[in-house]
């Protein structure tokens, strides 16, 4: 049998060109990053098993999953609301048997789906991130409506996405995370970058710790 191996490749292999884009000079209004080496597990409570699912999540992550659009910072993972009675467990890719461990923890109460290589995570920060986002995202991303820890599932550029706001950067600017299906990542990246060119874009790669 011929030797065969899979090569993992980022969906932004071509779209992401690290460096400065847009306005001439060094002005950076928007920091655009692809976050690699992520673990994503979609957890959906089975019918009538919501209480049990919450209990299992608390045992594994130390926190209850959010019951309304938002995020919850748990042990080694952030739990992101993705719909009624479902959430995404997002963590750094470290342990190899992460998914099977979670499968065991939620056995019989929730259905799990490994989305680690199914979605692409894009992080948008910088002083003009909100202005750039407002060109193609219909959500109100103002502090009052979308504070740190807020989350939403929404259509951005006709593409299904999960968006959430993490902790502000050290210089006090809002940081937004967008999860998108890998096959739409290239298109969405171009949309975001084009929208941000007038503010100056710094594009780069990031890895989860």
């Amino acid at each position, binding site marked *: 049998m011929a030797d065969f191996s899979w090569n993992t490749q980022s969906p932004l292999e071509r779209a992401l060109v690290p460096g400065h884009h847009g306005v001439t000079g060094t002005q950076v209004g928007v920091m655009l990053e692809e976050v690699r080496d992520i673990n994503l597990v979609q957890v959906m409570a089975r*019918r009538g098993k919501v209480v049990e699912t919450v209990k299992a999540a608390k045992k594994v992550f130390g926190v209850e999953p959010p019951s309304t659009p938002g995020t919850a910072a748990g042990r080694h993972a952030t739990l992101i609301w993705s719909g009624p009675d479902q959430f995404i467990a997002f963590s750094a890719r470290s342990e190899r048997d992460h998914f099977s461990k979670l499968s065991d923890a939620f056995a019989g109460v929730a259905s799990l789906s490994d989305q680690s290589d199914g979605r692409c995570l894009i992080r948008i920060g910088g002083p003009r991130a909100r202005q750039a986002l407002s060109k193609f995202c219909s959500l109100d991303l103002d502090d009052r409506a979308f504070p740190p820890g807020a989350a939403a599932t929404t259509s951005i550029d006709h593409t299904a996405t999960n968006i959430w706001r993490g902790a502000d950067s050290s210089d006090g600017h809002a940081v937004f995370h967008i999860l998108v299906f890998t096959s739409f990542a290239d298109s969405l990246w171009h949309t975001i970058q084009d929208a941000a060119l007038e503010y100056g874009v710094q594009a780069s790669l990031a890895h989860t710790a």
Partner: protein
Amino acid sequence: MRIACPFCGERENGEFTYLGDAAPKRPNFVVDGGESPERIEDAFYDYVYLRDNLAGVMREYWYHGGGCRSWLVAERNTVTHEFIAVTAAPGAGAASAMRAGE
């Protein structure tokens, strides 16, 4: 137009898909219950094809496919397009049990 999803909050209408009247109930006949085929056919014809064309407030199914992917029931005024109430359709999420006929 913006629609207030009971799960997500207010969203633009482009995230939603309209299905239609939430009133029709699927006919439920007992198998070999002695009902005439004509009556069963009539009932299903009504259920599948016949709709009232209301001018005023009606209950409708809407689908939040661009958001939380939940089925919703909206009370909407077809004359003014005002949404009076939007609630989760029976069976949305995992908490409530599915009700027969909806």
